[in-house]
C-alpha cells in the first residue's frame, strides 16, 4: 500500500493519543476530527498524507514570529514573569549567557525580593556570566524599587540588555498580579516604552493550566512572548498551541536543560516534529 498505512480508526485514534499526550488538550480532539473529515471527503490517501497534513496544520497554528529577539533599544529591557518554579531565574541566566556571547553588556535585576535565597541564586548566575547585578539593599525591598534601580543603573552604565527577574506567583493571586503590574508601571516611569519585552516562562511539563497562566499574566502585564523551559524531558509543551490560539503569543526561546548554553531560539519545525514523529 503506497503512502504508509491505510487511514482507519486505529491510525486516527493513535494520532489522537499522540496529540493529547503532547498536552494539546481539546485541540487534539479537534484536529483528529478534522483529519477524519478530510479523510471522509477523500482528501487524504494514506498515513503519509495524514502526517503531512497534521504537520502543516500544526505549523500553521504556531503562526509567524518568535525566535531570537532583536535588540533595538539601548538598554533593551526584558521583564521575566511566571508561576512558581517554572524556570524564570535559570532562563534569565541562560539569556545573559547568550547576550554576553554576542558581545553585549548585561545587567540583571534581582526582582524576586520574597523567596529564600532568590537574589543569591541570581547573583551566582550573574557572576558565572560576567554580568552585573542590582539587588535590594535592605530586607524586604519593594520589587518595583529594585526594578526601578536596575533600569536606572542600566542607563547610567550604558548597558545593552537588562533582564529583570521577578518572584514566582500564581495567576490566581490577585494581589501578586497587581504587584507585577506595578513593577511594569514603575519601569515605564524610568524608560517610557520599557519593558520592551515581557516574557512569560512556562514550565514545559505543565498541562492545560499553562493557557490560563498566559491569559492572566497577559491581562496583568501585557506579555509579549513565551519562553518554554524544561523541554529536555518527555513533555512536549503542547499547551503552546492553546496559548497561541487564545493570545497569539510567539515563543521566543526554549529551555532544554539546566546549564547556561541550553537555551535555543524557538524553531517551529523541530517543535512540531517532536510531537508528530
Amino acid at each position, binding site marked *: 500500500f503506497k503512502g504508509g498505512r491505510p487511514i482507519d480508526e486505529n491510525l486516527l485514534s493513535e494520532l489522537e493519543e499522540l496529540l493529547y499526550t503532547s498536552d494539546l488538550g481539546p485541540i487534539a480532539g479537534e484536529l483528529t476530527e478534522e483529519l477524519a473529515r478530510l479523510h471522509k471527503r477523500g482528501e487524504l490517501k494514506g498515513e503519509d498524507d495524514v502526517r503531512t497534513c497534521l504537520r502543516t496544520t500544526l505549523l500553521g497554528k504556531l503562526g509567524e514570529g518568535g525566535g531570537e529577539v532583536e535588540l533595538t533599544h539601548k538598554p533593551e529591557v526584558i521583564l521575566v514573569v511566571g508561576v512558581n518554579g517554572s524556570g524564570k531565574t535559570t532562563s534569565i541566566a541562560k539569556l545573559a549567557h547568550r547576550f554576553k556571547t554576542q558581545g553585549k553588556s548585561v545587567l540583571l535585576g534581582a526582582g524576586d525580593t520574597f523567596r529564600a535565597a532568590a537574589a*543569591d541564586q541570581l547573583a551566582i548566575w550573574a557572576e558565572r556570566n560576567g554580568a552585573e547585578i542590582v539587588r535590594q539593599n535592605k530586607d524586604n525591598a519593594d520589587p518595583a524599587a529594585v526594578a526601578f534601580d536596575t533600569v536606572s543603573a542600566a542607563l547610567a552604565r550604558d548597558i545593552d540588555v537588562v533582564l529583570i527577574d521577578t518572584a514566582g506567583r500564581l495567576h490566581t493571586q490577585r494581589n501578586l498580579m497587581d504587584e507585577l503590574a506595578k513593577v511594569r508601571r514603575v519601569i515605564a516611569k524610568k524608560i517610557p516604552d520599557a519593558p520592551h519585552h515581557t516574557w512569560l516562562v512556562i514550565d514545559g511539563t505543565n498541562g492545560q493550566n499553562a493557557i490560563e497562566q498566559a491569559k492572566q499574566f497577559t491581562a496583568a502585564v501585557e506579555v509579549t512572548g513565551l519562553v518554554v523551559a524544561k523541554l529536555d524531558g518527555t513533555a512536549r509543551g503542547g499547551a503552546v498551541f492553546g496559548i497561541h490560539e487564545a493570545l497569539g503569543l510567539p515563543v521566543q526561546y526554549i529551555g532544554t536543560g539546566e546549564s547556561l548554553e541550553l537555551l535555543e531560539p524557538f524553531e517551529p519545525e523541530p517543535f512540531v516534529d517532536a510531537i508528530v514523529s
Partner: protein
Amino acid sequence: SLTDRLSSSFSFFRGKKELTADNIEEGLKGVRQALLEADVHFKLAREFTERVRERALGDKRLKGVDPSEQFVHAVHEELVELMGPEDARLSYAKTGPTVILMAGLQGAGKTTTCAKLAKHLREKHQKRPLLVAADVKRPAAVEQLQILGNNIGIPVFHVPGKTPPEVCAAGVAEAKATGCDVVLLDTAGRLHVDDELMDEVAEIARVTSPDDQVLVVDAMTGQDAVNSAKAFHERLTLSGVILTKMDGDARGGAALALKEITGAPILFVGTGEKVDDIDAFHPERMAGRILG
C-alpha cells in the same frame, strides 16, 4: 461543574427509569471530556470512563433515584475511591530516626515542602526533625534550605564538597548523634530520563534506607505525569506523593497518574509559599476538583 457539563446530555436520561448501556454513552463522553480537560492522562481517562460504565450499570438497582443523579454519583464515588485513601500516614522507623527522601522534577516544590513538612512534624507530631541540604548543584539551593530552616528553628545539615549520597548518609548519622528522630532529605530536581541523576537518587536511597520515599509533584503537571511517575517508582518504589501548588486553579488530573502508576497515597498537598501552607489530602475534594 460536571453536572452542568452533563446537563445537556441529561436530556437523554430524562424520562428513563434507569441507566442503560445506550443512554449512558453521552454521559460517559462528557466524563471523559472533563477528565481530559483536567490533565488526566489520555489512557487513564479512557480506563476510568470504562470503570464508570461498569459501576453505573451495575448500580442500577437504586430505585427512586433520578438516573442522572445516580450517574454523577457513580462517577464521583469511583474517582474518590481512586484518589483515596484519606488520612494516609508517613511510615515511622521502629528504631532510630525516620528517614524521608524527597524526590521529584525540577521546580516541583521539594525544598519548600521539606521545610513545611519539618514544621508540621514538629508541631503536630512532636518530632525533632533534621533537614538535610543534599542539592549540591543548584545555585544557592543549600542557602535556600538554610534560610527556611532558620526561619522555623529547625537545624539544617550540609557538608560542602561531598556528593549527594555522602551528604545524605552523613545527615542520617548526624540525626542519630544529635537525637533527631526525623531526617528530611532535600534532593536536587531531576529528570526521569537523566540516567545519571536517577542512579544518584537510587544511590541516596541505598545508603540511607529511607522509611518514606516521597515524590513531590507540581499540580499543574500535564500528561507527562505518567512518564515521571513510572520512572521514579521503578527506581525508588515510592511510598507517598505530595501534590504542590494546589492553591492555584490547575485541576490536578496528574494525581490520577500518580495513583494508578505508583499506588502510593497522596500524603499532603502544598497550598502556598509559606511554611504553614501544607494541608492534609482530601480525596473527595480532589475528585470534585478534577471533575470540575
